[in-house]
């Protein structure tokens, strides 16, 4: 796999927790400005994959190549203390230099960058409010600004659409789409429901059984591709504009996709 233009490239990555394999030889690559959805059911290894890319988890085998530069990250299910005296503006500013030691005097340039980022994500109206007291959608915007303020080459978001209402979901997806182009960042966003994302994403990485298939959405989300990935027959149905993946026959729990098919990262054009 060539990694010359990739912002991140995974090659045959495997992660095991104790005796339990979570990811098996996952391979895909992401380039600048690509907006990619990481789809899979709960427990399929999406968070593990993102944490492996971040370097939080050691991979047992394979390699992860990342281009230089910052990585922006919005974690899953973050609970912000409503008592913490920290405004939305402060959270974004911490994204700029929160990991640096030592004291730092306020500067106009720094304040301008924070203000510009608050504006970019539409968070100016609640910038002075305590971040723990904001709604879920507002917090997502603030965390997004926190992740983007250093202008990362790669933005990883773990289930950012969970617990959002339909309106907020659509707004966040549109915002991410716009910002990935505006900032030239590759975006990898995990979700268990692909429907809000499919109209917006350039690519899909679909995880099941610890294996991955990646490519354009139309090429990945197909009956024959996902059946091969799951290791048993599934139907991909389109109902009222929504995609539904349905297991069409009993699941064979005794054999894994790896055992059934040694080529478990399925190349899709």
């Amino acid at each position: 796999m060539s990694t010359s233009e990739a912002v991140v490239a995974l090659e045959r990555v495997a992660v095991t927790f104790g005796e339990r394999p979570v990811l098996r030889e996952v391979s895909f690559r992401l380039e600048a400005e690509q907006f990619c959805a990481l789809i899979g059911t709960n427990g399929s290894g999406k968070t593990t994959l993102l944490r492996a890319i971040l370097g939080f988890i050691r991979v047992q085998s394979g390699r992860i190549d990342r281009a230089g530069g910052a990585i922006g990250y919005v974690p899953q299910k973050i609970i912000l203390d409503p008592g913490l005296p920290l405004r939305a503006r402060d959270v974004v500013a911490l994204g700029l230099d929160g990991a640096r030691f030592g004291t730092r005097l306020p500067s106009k340039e720094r304040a301008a960058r924070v203000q510009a980022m608050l504006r970019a994500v539409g968070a100016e109206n609640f910038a002075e409010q305590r971040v723990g007291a904001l709604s879920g959608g507002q917090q997502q915007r603030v965390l997004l600004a926190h992740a983007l303020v250093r202008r990362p080459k790669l933005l990883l978001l773990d289930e950012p659409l969970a617990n959002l209402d339909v309106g907020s979901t659509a707004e966040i997806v549109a915002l991410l789409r716009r910002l990935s182009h505006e900032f030239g960042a590759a975006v990898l966003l995990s979700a268990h429901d692909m429907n809000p994302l499919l109209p917006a994403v350039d690519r899909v990485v679909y995880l099941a059984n610890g294996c991955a298939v990646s490519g354009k959405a139309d090429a990945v989300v197909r009956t024959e591709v996902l059946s091969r990935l799951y290791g048993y027959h599934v139907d991909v149905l389109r109902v009222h504009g929504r995609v539904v993946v349905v297991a069409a026959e009993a699941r064979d729990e005794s054999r894994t996709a790896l055992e059934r098919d040694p080529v478990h990262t399925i190349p899709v054009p």
Partner: protein
Amino acid sequence: MLHAWVVATLVAVTAGCVGFFVVARRAAFAAHALPLGAFPGAAAASLMGVNLFWGLAGFSALGVLVIGQLQRAGRREIASALWLSGALALGVLLLSLSGRYAQSVYGLLFGDLLGIDTTQMVVVAACSGLTVALVAWVARPLLLDSLSSELASAAGARAAALEFAFLGILALATAIAVPVVGALLVFSLMVGPSSAARAFTDRPWRALAIAVGMCLATVWSAIALAYLTNWPVGFFVGVLSALCYVVGRLRGGTAALAHVT
């Protein structure tokens, strides 16, 4: 008396700076366990006839190591509780061996502010300056880590190292404050004013400054009231710290205060 005012001022500034992060990181129990866990250190120093500070500092450092190691396998509260119970048991044994049981226990648990000499004042001044400098050095990563360890790690900070640094700072603050306000009351001085300060502002560094101001008001008032009434300083420190918390609640910070621990 001058020594008491100077040392109380230094301890208040240190407690306010450290207390802000104790509350932000929901580490109130660790702030309780470390000073009490340093109790056998003071008892050992008393037994050997050396300065109590070194015994406190040694056992505070040991507490940091033990809690740091134990919490890798579980939660901070459990690690703190295990350390606390073991250290208290050892402290009781060492105090009984020293032959000065009642007097030593009282001094260690409630402090002896009026018994501070010039040497102790110099040590407290140096350690207080070091503690405040360390807090300033790690303040931003510590604040980001208090918001979310994952965000801090993604930004390049090492969450485990930050937690260790925080416990180290807490131990240093403890070693300074225990001879002054006592092992039982260090906790109240760190937690009461700092939790109340959260109700007065939405800005982090302003909240830290308010916490320091409240700690100063608490210890200065406590000394004055103790002088007027001849009651123990520690009593007034505890009561006034609790009063700070009540004032914070009345200020309307109910939501903020509910998340202290």
